[in-house]
């Protein structure tokens, strides 16, 4: 005879406030097989867990149902508690009466009725549960980091320092990411390159770190501990081993008018190029779409001047396949296109810049050697206007619904940098709200306004018109209720940021999900902020959500710590909720193998299908495909789910 114990949690007032827990206990105690039912304020607290443990030993429970918060919160907690008392942890089921009952229904009577139904369904399921035992799988003690920005570099360095091999895959020709493009960093104003380049060099020189730049993830197979990843190393047309980085090739390259990606298009580069002077690796690539040799077959000057003979026009894309135990996705961000924001005259005037373009301009290593000039005439501007929230907090199809988070602070930084160089330039900022939470952040913003005399105007710009050599701005000062028709020499737009274009596909390849804005989704917004939904895949940086450098670095180190925690293990427990064939029923028809995404089903015995438990992830596609019911899924068997359906429909 089954003896099932039901434990109803109050979760303080979170559940009890809306569900009559005493009534749930009363009603569930009459259900067949329920040996005991109790309620307690906090089942997840040690005292609550002790109640479960004691009840298992005292009443000889064969199954446990905890009616509490979502299983995503505490299923593991209660399973461990049962295990400690000698009950197989898979004999525990959770009835989710908080997230899916007390929090979403206001009427106590009907919410209580639903809570009883959910508990009854869980009891019905436990009746059909069988003890399950996790298997073991090995761990490949190497990590993959996708993205070579500051997040990727930091994660790689931390993992490598712990003694594990790391491979960084970066799409552009150099690691460094967006941080390499920045001038100074807020709120300390230390030089971005000065703090980044040593890390880049460290990563390049580290024995445990391999860097593949100009490379992309091609294909991913496997699962936590055992990912097999194919990496496409795009043809660089330059032999990495022979190249000395002397620069003769790009000095001679006749194609000199390709807009430089690194300098945000403010100046041009050659067809064979390294993105910037401190690039790692310091090996150029040939941009084949612009190279004369690739377009017409004539030229080849770079090969002529290259003394080590590193130029190789015949180089092909190379696919390498490596095994990894864990992955960090640090795919970073891009700024949004301003095509839909015609009112800011971005495409009409070279003097309207995005903030990232301005970073290059104010950078001493940038195209203007750090001089702030109008791109139209090279003159120093007398007044500069910043416009905030360009495309951020915008629910129309033009922009992004979220706050890009970094703009308020970098605008204050850029305003200070201007005032520092040219105190006589008028600087004004049109803002909706100024948001500066963070250590020393608000002080920094106030310094811009108080010490440097940056004018902050609460209001927005409606239209910018490029008239002759000045920009006419039509705006409103919300506090004075004043309309403003003003002229300015230069405009800097705080353009919204978005996940880089590869984020969605990359996440998809690792079976990890993205949200409606294509930011990668963390496993839990508060408690598991660096883990993805896929075991063994971790998140860092702006691919997961807008964040500044310190936050990015913190998240990268956190992800690295998670990776290290995984890689130090010799064996991983595998999910015992895998599919299995009933050999008496299976007639080997082969339908199940067609739908298995992991290739876990084989038919070697010639008589029945067999499932490789290490490969099976327990999705259940095969079970539904099997017409005879020979295939079934542990933990979610046909009979368990049928019992739940029956109980819930009562």
């Amino acid at each position, binding site marked *: 005879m089954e003896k099932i114990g039901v434990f109803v949690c109050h979760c303080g007032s979170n559940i009890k406030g809306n569900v009559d827990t005493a009534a749930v206990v009363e009603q569930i105690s009459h259900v067949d097989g329920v040996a005991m039912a109790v309620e307690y304020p906090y089942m997840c607290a040690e005292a609550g867990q002790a109640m479960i443990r004691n009840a298992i030993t005292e009443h000889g429970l064969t199954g446990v149902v905890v009616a509490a918060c*979502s*299983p*995503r919160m505490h299923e593991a907690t209660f399973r461990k508690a049962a295990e400690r008392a000698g009950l197989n942890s898979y004999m525990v089921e959770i009835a*989710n009466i*908080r*997230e*899916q009952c007390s*929090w*979403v*229904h*206001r*009427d106590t009577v*009907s*919410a209580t*009725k*639903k809570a009883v*139904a*959910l508990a009854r*369904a869980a009891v019905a399921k436990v009746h059909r549960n069988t003890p399950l035992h996790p298997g073991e799988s090995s761990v490949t003690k190497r990590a993959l980091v996708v993205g070579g920005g500051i997040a990727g570099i930091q994660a790689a360095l931390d993992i490598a320092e712990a003694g594990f091999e790391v491979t960084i895959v970066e799409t552009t020709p150099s690691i460094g990411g967006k941080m390499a493009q920045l001038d100074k960093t807020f709120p300390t104003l230390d030089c971005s390159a000065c703090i980044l380049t040593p890390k880049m060099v460290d990563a390049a020189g580290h024995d445990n770190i391999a860097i593949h730049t100009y490379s992309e993830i091609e294909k991913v197979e496997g699962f936590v501990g055992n990912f097999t990843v194919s990496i496409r190393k795009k043809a660089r047309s330059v032999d990495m081993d022979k190249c000395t980085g002397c620069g003769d090739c790009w000095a001679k390259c006749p194609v000199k008018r390709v807009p430089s990606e690194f300098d945000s298009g403010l100046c041009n580069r050659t067809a064979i190029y390294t993105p910037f002077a401190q690039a790692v690796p310091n090996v150029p690539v040939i941009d084949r779409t612009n190279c004369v040799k690739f377009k017409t077959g004539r030229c080849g000057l770079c090969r002529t001047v290259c003394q080590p003979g590193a130029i190789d026009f015949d180089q092909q894309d190379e696919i390498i396949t490596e095994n990894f135990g864990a992955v960090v996705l640090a795919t970073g961000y891009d700024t949004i296109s301003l095509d839909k924001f015609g009112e800011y005259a971005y495409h009409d005037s070279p003097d309207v810049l995005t903030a990232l373009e301005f970073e290059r301009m104010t950078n001493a290593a940038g195209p203007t050697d750090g001089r702030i000039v109008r791109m139209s005439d090279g003159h120093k501007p007398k007044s500069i206007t910043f416009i905030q929230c360009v495309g951020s907090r915008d629910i129309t199809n033009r922009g992004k619904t979220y706050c890009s988070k970094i703009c308020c602070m970098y605008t204050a930084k850029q305003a200070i940098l201007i005032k520092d160089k040219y105190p006589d330039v008028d600087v004004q900022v049109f803002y909706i709200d100024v948001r500066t939470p963070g250590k020393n952040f608000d002080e920094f913003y106030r310094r811009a306004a108080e010490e440097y005399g940056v004018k902050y105007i609460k209001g927005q710009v409606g239209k910018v018109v490029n008239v002759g050599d000045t920009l006419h701005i039509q705006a409103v000062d919300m506090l004075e209720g004043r309309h403003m028709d003003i002229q300015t020499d230069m405009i800097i737009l705080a353009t919204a940021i978005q996940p880089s274009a590869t984020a969605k596909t990359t996440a*998809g390849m690792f*079976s990890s*999900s*993205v*949200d*409606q804005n294509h930011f990668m*989704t963390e496993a839990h917004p508060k408690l598991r902020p660096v883990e993805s*939904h*896929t075991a063994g895949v971790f998140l860092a940086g702006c691919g997961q959500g807008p964040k500044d450098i310190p936050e990015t670095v913190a998240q990268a180190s956190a992800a690295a710590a998670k990776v290290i925690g995984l890689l130090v293990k010799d064996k991983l427990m595998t999910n015992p*909720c895998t599919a299995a064939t009933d050999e008496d029923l299976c007639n080997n028809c082969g339908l199940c193998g067609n*739908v298995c*995404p992991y290739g876990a089903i084989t038919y070697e015995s010639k008589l029945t299908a067999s499932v490789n438990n290490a490969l099976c*992830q*327990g*999705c*259940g*596609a095969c*079970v*539904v*495909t099997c017409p005879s019911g020979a295939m079934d*899924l542990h933990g*979610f068997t*046909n009979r368990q*789910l*049928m019992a*739940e*359906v*029956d109980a*819930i*429909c*009562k």
Partner: protein
Amino acid sequence: MQITDFNPNIVAFCCNWCSYAGADLAGTSRLQYPVQVRIIKVPCSCRVDPLFILRAFQRGADGVAVCGCHPGDCHYATGNYYTRRRMALLHNMLDFMGIERDRMLLQWVSAAEGAKFAKTMTDFVENIHMLGKNTRLADWRVVNAGNNETES
């Protein structure tokens, strides 16, 4: 305000990775939806056997929803592609046999779409209210026996 005393019985199969988490998010965000919706967790929407759906109807469910990750976002890479085909066929098949289309719903709800989950369920229950009690697929022996059991 509901004038009728019809209290529909709604079963929602939610995949563990997206829709169940989306339903949880509706909870943490305190977004209200009709109390008649009861969720059964499955690892993936592709774990939902047409038999479960028919069984739910047989046992007196007035509406059955199947929720999974958006196409392309399946935790198991391809599960919901099969779900989509299977459910489309089943849906048409039930319609062909004279069962109201609106009694069955397939919807993609991501882990970030708590609001979508609440709205989907609210709209679904509203549709079921308009359709009224499921009389065409329910096995009244079972449904009545079930009612007696709870009353006794």
